[in-house]
């Protein structure tokens, strides 16, 4: 639920944007304060009433209020919830049934139990107002647990979605797997590189380079105004690659040289992921947004499958790119060197390969790919913590495919993507990310080196 719902998708410009962001910030504080305080506060007692506040917690744990929902107290009347999701109906002593009109709930939310749309007995007496509760959750399904019918159309659609998720995941997973292969480091911050790509592209899309250097705001695009998404994406990928270069050159290479152990480096990546994520939140704020171009597109039908043109384009691009990466790894000198180092670092070093150079390229290209993955994911939604939410999926993908091989990451990502989307045929959509964990646990039990990995277990 975006605070910007109903407003134009274009974000404000930097200078004048500050005023607006204060307003937004202030409003958010107010709403947040009210939301958190709301559960404990009683209303001023001017006569007795039936009251309440409609809100729910979204997947990230943020509380979102629901305005414009109709509540009816039978025999007395109806009200709609105000901007803070609150409602209040004055009533004389008695017992009432209170009904929430499901039709007036916004899309994307529903009662956690559709049987509780009506509260049959609410007693009000002695001048004490009565608070009522309607538990509301994010999600489309009104009734719990009933998986929708399994038919070919759904299967085909979910397969397409799974392919889409898998392809985009693969872009990030390759870098993660190769960084592990060449340096032995499990990079917990890799998911933030995805977010970085998504956010920088958004940034270039709307501000050009201006946001970074304020006085450029008045200049023409790409310095001043925003640029078309395609160029913005190009800049975003460049930003991604640069971040990868930066992290390796100034943080990890330095740490390697100083003899910092792998576990300590791993903890560093954890710290980095927290640092980056909250810097993102700090600057980008918590609301999800979308890119300025190609935002609302109608879906195109391909037989039983429906995808938007941008999805199809992005998927096609990813396939091409992944094929390109494959070709690169197989045929170019650097590509082969990367594979060699990832497979056996000592051996590669002794055969004359400049390992540090390879590591540098792995970080740059891995981060750039991850950034592009972020752009593709961002076609649906741009959010500060998107990367972190996919961390679990990324780990599942590289574990499944085999830590240390690029092809493994690709295979693993496709399988994970398909698995989580197709799993919604059988289980509640809310749980689909759990499928990724299941995949990971199963693989660790039976083939810990993954599909394409080498056997490196402790004896």
């Amino acid at each position: 639920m975006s605070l910007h719902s109903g407003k134009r998708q274009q974000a404000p410009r930097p200078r004048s944007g500050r005023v607006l962001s204060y307003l937004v910030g202030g409003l958010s504080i107010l709403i947040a304060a009210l939301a958190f305080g709301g559960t404990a506060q009683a209303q001023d007692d001017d006569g007795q009433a039936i009251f309440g506040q409609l809100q729910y917690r979204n997947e990230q744990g943020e509380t979102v209020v629901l305005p414009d929902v109709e509540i009816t107290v039978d025999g007395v009347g109806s009200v709609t919830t105000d901007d803070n999701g609150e409602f209040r109906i004055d009533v004389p002593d008695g017992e009432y049934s209170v009904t929430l009109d499901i039709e007036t709930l916004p899309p994307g939310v529903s009662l956690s139990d559709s049987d509780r749309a009506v509260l049959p007995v609410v007693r009000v007496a002695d001048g004490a107002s009565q608070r009522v509760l309607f538990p509301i959750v994010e999600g489309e399904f009104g009734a719990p647990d009933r998986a929708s019918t399994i038919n070919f159309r759904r299967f085909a659609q979910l397969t397409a979605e799974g392919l889409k998720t898998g392809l985009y995941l693969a872009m990030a997973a390759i870098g993660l797997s190769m960084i592990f292969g060449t340096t032995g480091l499990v990079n917990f911050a890799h998911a933030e590189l995805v977010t970085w790509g998504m956010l920088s592209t958004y940034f270039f899309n709307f501000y050009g380079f201006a946001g970074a250097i304020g006085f450029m705001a008045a200049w023409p695009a790409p310095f001043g105004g925003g640029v078309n998404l395609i160029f913005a994406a190009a800049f975003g990928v460049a930003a991604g690659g640069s971040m990868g270069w930066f992290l390796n050159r100034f943080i990890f290479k330095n740490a390697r040289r100083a003899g910092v152990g792998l576990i300590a480096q791993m903890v560093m990546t954890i710290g980095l992921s927290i640092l980056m994520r909250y810097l993102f939140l700090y600057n980008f704020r918590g609301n999800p947004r979308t890119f300025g171009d190609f935002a609302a597109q109608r879906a195109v039908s391909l037989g039983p499958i429906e995808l938007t043109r941008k999805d199809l384009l992005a998927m096609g691009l990813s396939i091409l790119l992944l094929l390109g990466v494959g070709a690169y790894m197989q045929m170019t000198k650097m590509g082969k060197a990367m594979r060699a180092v990832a497979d056996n670092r000592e051996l590669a070093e002794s055969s004359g390969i400049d390992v540090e150079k390879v590591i540098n390229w792995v970080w740059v290209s891995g981060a750039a790919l991850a950034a592009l993955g972020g752009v593709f994911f961002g076609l649906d939604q741009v959010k500060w913590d998107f990367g972190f939410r996919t961390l679990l999926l990324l780990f599942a993908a590289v574990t499944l495919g085999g830590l240390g091989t690029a092809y493994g990451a690709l295979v693993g990502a496709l399988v994970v993507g398909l698995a989580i989307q197709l799993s919604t045929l059988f289980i509640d959509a809310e749980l689909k990310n759990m499928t990724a964990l299941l995949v990971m646990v199963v693989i660790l039990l039976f083939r810990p080196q993954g599909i394409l990995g080498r056997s490196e277990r402790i004896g």
Partner: protein
Amino acid sequence: MDWGFIFERTFSAMIGPEVVVFALAAIGLNVHFGYAGLLNFGQVGFMAAGAYGLGMTVHWMGLSFWLGIFMGIGYSVVLALILGLPTLRLRADYLGLVTIASSETIRLFVRWRGNRGRTGASEGIGEFAGAFYDINPFKTGVFYQFGPFKFLGRDLWVLVVGWSLLLLAVLVVWQLMRSPWGRALKAIREDEDAARALGKNAYALKVQALILGGVIGGVAGMLQVVQKASIQPDTFNPVITFLIWTILILGGPGRVWSPVIGSMIYWSLIVFIENVLRGLPDGARDGLESTVELSDFNIGQFRFILVGLGLVLLARYRPQGIFGSREEMALDDR
């Protein structure tokens, strides 16, 4: 600026419930990582196991609070077994991956709508801590003041119990680590093959360590939710795990008291900084807002930015923390 208020807040925070809960969780993690060399990136999952074990037993099954504690411990044990038995034969990274995945899964599962009748889903569980507060010798609504500390009777009881549990945990860990069991564990942490060649069942010892640290984590979770008198799935998120790691590394892994000291330092520092920022005179506040856009709204986020930065610097420059010794430095493996 009201320094008196700031210091009072800071001192209270230093011995307050967050410190105790996080210190307990960090003691558990210390057993895992500091002593056994296990990479547990899902300690918050153990906290959730304890908390929900308690809450579900009391609230949904209507059984006694004490049985709930037992169940909470039981859930933690089961979780440790589920995670450890398959992965402890493999390389250390795998436990790390599995634990981070499982703690998130627990959170997702527990907040799932379909579990409304078992875990309360996204609303969580309330009304389970009654028995705990019934035996509170302090008067609930009354303030007790001693020195710079001031606590409500209700919170004071939580603190008394909490610090006692903390002491008990420290004692247990201290006793175990000076015993031959602890010695064998230290050996396994450093070189599993050598330990096995000398007849130590490395696998079993690691599983035991995982269970011990997990149970302590579960107790931390139970204490946390009893203090809040409410169990909410989203409080058991991965960032908590990494806060615990920060505290552990700050104090120094592998030392008995360091999780406690680390927790105290961390929380007093955070509370101090946040209160200073909030308490700045208007001129300074406006200045901060216009330059770095720091407002009341995002001071809380600032905390995490500091944590992230702190963790990177700690791991890089002083992985043995404040009290760890370079010789016994736990992070310098491999």
